């Protein structure tokens, strides 16, 4: 298992600096929550780590420097992510979705033939995320929460060692959140997990450690209790969190 080590990360768009010198260490096997108000730079941080946006600074995962690599190469070095709105291949079945996720390393010959059986890691993932019964349903017909689980399942079969999840429980019912949280806990026993979340209850229940981002910088870091006790956090974040908690479901950060 490897940890994530970010040094002096900066991302700017047309003069606007979204991430402004972030240093962050996530040790191997952590279940880290990233919180912060809209515009704090949480999603941009994940975008930078996964190669979606250009950034300066350094992002090391294990022994490897990720910055400057293309998206699919970063993915192949064991870093996977999900998106705020669940992105699964709607026309393909659950099984096909997972099979594709499992197959980045396949050779041409395998690719050009049909899938004749269910690969073992896919079968395992189906059970882990509880979608075994829906294996042959098109992913487009899944409920919102099920899609999120499918995405997590895809990260599992992809065998990533670092999972970056962007609001995985948004729009889920209470029971689903509970199930998701427990799933993440299990996953983090073998892998490193970073979760962006607005849901404070969910964070309190499952976070092993928390980083608070504000205006592109890390404001505070520590356990849930430590962060909650931090007056800076109370001032800039929790202060207006109450009003935003409900409303930030679909609104994208600018």
């Amino acid at each position, binding site marked *: 298992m490897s940890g994530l080590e970010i040094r002096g990360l900066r991302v700017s768009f047309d003069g606007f600096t979204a991430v402004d010198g972030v240093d962050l260490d996530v040790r191997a096997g952590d279940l880290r929550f990233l919180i912060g108000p809209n515009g704090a730079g949480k999603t941009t941080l994940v975008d930078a780590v996964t190669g979606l946006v250009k950034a300066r600074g350094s992002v090391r995962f294990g022994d490897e420097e990720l910055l400057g690599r293309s998206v*699919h190469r970063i993915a192949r070095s064991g870093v996977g992510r999900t998106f705020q709105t669940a992105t699964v291949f709607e026309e393909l079945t659950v099984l096909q979705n997972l099979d594709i996720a499992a197959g980045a390393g396949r050779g041409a010959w395998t690719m050009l033939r049909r899938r004749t059986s269910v690969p073992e890691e896919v079968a395992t993932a189906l059970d882990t995320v509880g979608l075994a019964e829906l294996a042959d349903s098109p992913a487009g017909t899944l*409920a*919102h929460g099920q899609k999120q689980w499918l995405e997590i399942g895809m990260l599992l079969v992809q065998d990533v060692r670092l999972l970056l999840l962007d609001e995985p429980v948004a729009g889920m019912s209470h029971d689903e959140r509970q199930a998701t949280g427990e799933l993440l806990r299990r996953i983090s026993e073998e892998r490193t997990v970073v979760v962006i979340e607005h849901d404070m209850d969910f964070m309190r229940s499952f976070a092993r450690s928390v980083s608070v981002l504000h205006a592109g910088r890390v404001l505070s870091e520590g356990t849930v209790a430590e962060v909650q006790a931090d007056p800076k956090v109370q001032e800039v974040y929790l202060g207006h969190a109450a009003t935003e908690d409900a409303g930030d479901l679909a609104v994208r950060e600018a």
Partner: protein
Amino acid sequence: MNLLKGRSARAWTGFAGAAVALFAVAPAALSDFRLGLLAKYLCMAMVAVGICLAWGRGGLLTLGQGVFFGLGGYAMAMHLKIADAGPGNLPDFMQLYGTATELPWWWRPFGNPVFALAATVLLPMAVAALLGLFVFRRRVKGAYFAILSQALASAFAIWLVGQQATTGGTNGLTDIQGFFGYALDDPVNQRMVYFVIAAALLLLIALARQLIHSRYGELLVAVRDSEERVRFLGYDPANVKLVAYVVAAGMAGLAGALFVPAVGIISPALIGIVPSIEFVIGAAVGGRASLVGAVLGAIAVAWAKTALSEEFPAGWTYFQGLLFVVALAFLPGGLASLAKVLRRRGATAPAKAAVVTVGEAA
């Protein structure tokens, strides 16, 4: 392949049916002239097979298939013209318009039948690979890709027209007499050309079907629906798209090559923007994502063009335009989706109910 599977069984039945229709029914029922037209439609259908793969499955709106069709067609026609002229002679149009006294260097390899035959498929594929490499790497997609393809088709046509001495200019390569030694004005040989085309079409359909149902086919759909997502799974979508694009180009090239003996002419008029759009329209009307739909759509649209223009020589453009508008605006899945739409009406209701019980929809 597992014959017991329902899907495969249906496919085999369909295949056998198509073979019977193409090889036994059509030749018996149609006059030589109509059979010749059918051969031409089947060439259009071959292009549609590729379009189904690249556009229907891969989301690449290939508005430049005329280029590949033309490359294949010209490669074939160049060989046939050289063969017609006989050793040591220049093709007729070069004697008429050209200043050269010997074959231009880039014509010479096409004198070799093996090279020419290989080139009909490999040349379009190579061009597509080169172009695709540039375009997909730089993530040019969607509308950009479509318009770029059109511009390319138009540039290629203009270039061909400008090189009258070596390409026949606007006329194209016409008056092709023989096909590897067989006189093309003999109805029996024309019929054989038809059989070759029909066989080639079935072969391409089988090939495309294998691709579509392979793991690659699933991945291609995934790329179409969310390219970024696939990238985060560790694939390079550029390569995935490239394969579909190159295969589609090869199919268009083969279609162009076989079009030449069937119709006896290849010209820039088959390469520019308008024919390139017409190639796509057939697949779109029939159903771009469905092989059967795309193939039947291409044949139907080509047939409708002939039939409507014979029946209403002055007004058929209205019908053509209307057909595209109605089929695409109101039936995006094409005619192939009609059956599915009807079937799904019954099936989706319970599925939706299940969704609601699991969680509140976002």
